[in-house]
């Protein structure tokens, strides 16, 4: 069986191999459950779509799993109560993007009681429409990072044909091990979730891509997936292997055309965490109210993975890890390559919070950028095969036209270029600026 998986280790061209990726700190420790807290703050705005509308008001009693905010439009996802208690109100809390944002605060009553709001379904018998409705009802979103509503991703635009489903278990971000633990501990739920996704899409070609630094997970999954028709695909350890486009390139051998969707390459990609959440929603009838989060970093005293309810303040998660060894230099939600640096420990865990990362001050120091010496490391590292150094020079000279001509809009902001840049140039910032500028020009 190991022959089967070691026969071909797939990947893509470009990208980087981060040195000392910090996964050892937390990968070997089984996921622990977090004790019930007194308060949870569930963020309303989670993704680029429309925030859901609250359906509860101050003073309302809620049960666990009860709907507290309903999707507002198609690109929007339901929110459910992480525990039973009383709604304190709609409060303003620091959001993950740096702005104050609205959240529903719930004071727990300590009973943590509530029935599964949906009727359990048998994935193999329920109709695809029924299952798709369940996805939307349960408030499923992409748990890998973008938090995009899952029912939208499963609705294939007319005229496009999807023949391949890929589950993303690459977890290419350094430090993060939440998906690794999930693969090891929730393997059967994952496979059922994968098959459910396949049924919704009418796709039989299902793969789960896992980087080979999780060899135990690959072996375990290959064993239990032997006769269910789901392929476990070992992938090279290469960042950003977990990018949708690069996962499709590695596993299906297809390229998503520039500006296109995965469906344009006949593929749909879902995060492994989302697949497990789907199994919970279908088999048990419970919505998405908790997720596995890696609390880690050199500064954290006892790093590990915890099953945290959505709305848990970050500071409480750090408390579970026995606090810190010294004052951290940076707090990051997500991984160190694409995660967002935060300024407050009060920020709540959301459905897409894969990691809470505390980096020591020496790692977080700001480098002084120097001139580009055209070493070409960024060109070798760019998974989109762009020329970051030339783009950056063009943008510095306000030549957005030149940047557009050289495909800056195709940048996925993975940060590979900035990671390898010996001059520590703010390449990703330049590209974000250029993309925003070009978008606003196009709107005019």
């Amino acid at each position, binding site marked *: 069986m190991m022959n089967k998986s070691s026969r071909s280790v797939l990947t893509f061209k470009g990208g980087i191999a981060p040195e000392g990726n910090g996964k050892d700190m937390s990968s070997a420790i089984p996921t622990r459950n977090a004790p019930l807290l007194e308060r949870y703050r569930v963020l309303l705005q989670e993704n680029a779509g429309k925030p859901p509308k609250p359906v509860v008001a101050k003073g309302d009693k809620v049960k666990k799993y009860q709907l507290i905010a309903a999707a507002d439009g198609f690109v929007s996802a339901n929110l459910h109560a992480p525990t039973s208690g009383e709604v304190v109100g709609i409060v303003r809390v620091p959001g993950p993007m*740096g702005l104050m944002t609205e959240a529903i605060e719930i004071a727990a009553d300590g009973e943590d009681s509530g029935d599964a709001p949906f009727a359990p379904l048998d994935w193999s018998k329920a109709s695809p429409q029924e299952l798709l409705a369940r996805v939307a009802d349960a408030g499923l979103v992409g748990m890998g990072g973008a938090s995009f509503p899952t029912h939208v991703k499963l609705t294939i635009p007319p005229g496009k044909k999807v023949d391949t489903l890929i589950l993303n278990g690459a977890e290419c971000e*350094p430090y993060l091990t939440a998906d690794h633990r999930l693969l090891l501990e929730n393997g059967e739920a994952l496979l059922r979730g994968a098959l459910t996704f396949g049924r919704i899409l009418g796709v039989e070609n299902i793969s789960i891509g896992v980087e080979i630094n999780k060899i135990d997970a690959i072996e375990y999954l290959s064993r239990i997936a032997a006769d269910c028709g789901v392929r476990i695909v070992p992938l090279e350890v290469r960042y950003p292997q977990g990018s949708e*486009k690069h996962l499709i*390139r590695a596993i299906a051998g297809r*390229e*998503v*055309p*520039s*500006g*296109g969707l995965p469906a344009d390459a*006949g593929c749909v990609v879902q995060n492994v965490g989302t697949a497990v959440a789907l199994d919970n929603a279908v088999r048990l009838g419970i919505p998405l109210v908790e997720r596995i989060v890696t609390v880690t970093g050199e*500064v954290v*005293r006892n790093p590990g993975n915890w099953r945290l309810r959505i709305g848990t303040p970050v500071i409480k998660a*750090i*408390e579970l890890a*026995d*606090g810190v*060894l010294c*004052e*951290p*230099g*940076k*707090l990051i939600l997500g991984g160190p*390559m*694409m*995660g*967002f*640096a*935060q*300024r407050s420990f009060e920020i709540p865990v959301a459905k897409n919070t894969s990691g809470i*990362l505390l980096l020591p*001050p020496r*790692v*977080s*120091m*700001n*480098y002084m950028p*120097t*001139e580009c*010496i*055209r*070493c*070409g*490391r960024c*060109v070798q590292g760019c*998974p*989109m*095969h762009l*020329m970051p150094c030339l783009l950056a020079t063009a943008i510095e000279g306000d030549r957005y036209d030149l940047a557009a001509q050289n*495909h800056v809009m*195709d940048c996925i*902001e993975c*940060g*590979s270029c900035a*990671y390898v840049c*010996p*001059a*520590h140039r703010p390449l*990703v910032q330049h590209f*974000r600026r250029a993309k925003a500028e070009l978008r606003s020009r196009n709107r005019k």
Partner: protein
Amino acid sequence: MDSTLQKRPVMLPTGEKLVVSSSPHLSRPESVGRIMALVLVALLPPAAAGVWFFGLKALTVIVLTVLFSLGAEALWCLLAGKPVGRTLRDGSAAVTGVLLALNLPPDVPFYIPLIGAFLAIWFGKQVFGGLGYNPFNPALVARVGLLIAFPALMTQWSAPRGMDESYPQAALFCKSTPAPSVTCATPLGIASVSGKVLGGGQKAQQHFDPIDSASLRLKYFLGMRGGCIGETCVPALLLGAAILLIFNLINWRVPVCFVGTVAVLTGILHFFLPGATPSPLFHILTGGLLLGAIYMATDMVTSPITGSGCLVFAVGCGVITTVIRVWGNYPEGVSFSILFMNALVPLIDRWCGVRPFGYISRPAEKAR
């Protein structure tokens, strides 16, 4: 130690010193200063070999050139109001200094390094905006400038160590009794004169044979010949190349294709017109081809960014070098060829771009 850690109460961060910045939050521990330091390390073998073969005067030239280069850089920064310390710390001026010194004859008066350093730092680099913006290799700008301004001094070669009684062919190169500080001709110089004065053909070939013999090739390989300080000792140059390659400081395509192109072209000429030029091995072992191909053409700032671009660039360097060596007035064409191709780098970068991800060729689009 562990137990004391365990007993301490849980310490929670206050968040007072949190840095908020854009992703990525990790960076490889590499800096421009470290790259330049590694290049300096890679320059040590040929520099050491130069001092061994040409004596303390070579060391003097190297030290003076580096000091003058640092001085020129510091002076420019002072005049331009740039931070002096930061610019000097990146190490690029020191690298330019050593590179220029390795491209100078061992026996030049002090004002050659002085003028060369200013040519390199001021007119090769800073007038264009400093490190990263110079289109031409600064050390080569200085070398060519000096070659045109001081043709005699820049082509006056002293005999290397070992060119004495144990070197039977020494008389081919040195007019008087071979001894240190006596000037001698370079093999390439003799070949050039023979090739061009005698107009090729049988006669020229007879002149090539004695300087292109198997026993002499070994001496050329080891570095026992007249030439610039850093260009003669092939093992030292190869060691330097190995260091540069191991630390990913150069693109292998440049030296391999540059030298390869010269070898193939001179090989064809040598085979079909033996009087036109000596053997390809002679061209590789003598002159500045290896020094240029390993250290000068590979300069990050002035060479193309993509692999295919490096290929075009290196082949171009090889073609021009061969043309100048075989038909030009100068015996040596490496410096000119690199500078010429430097000028084309922006165009090469444009032509030899890579296909961005997601820009699928037409047939694949139709297939879907």
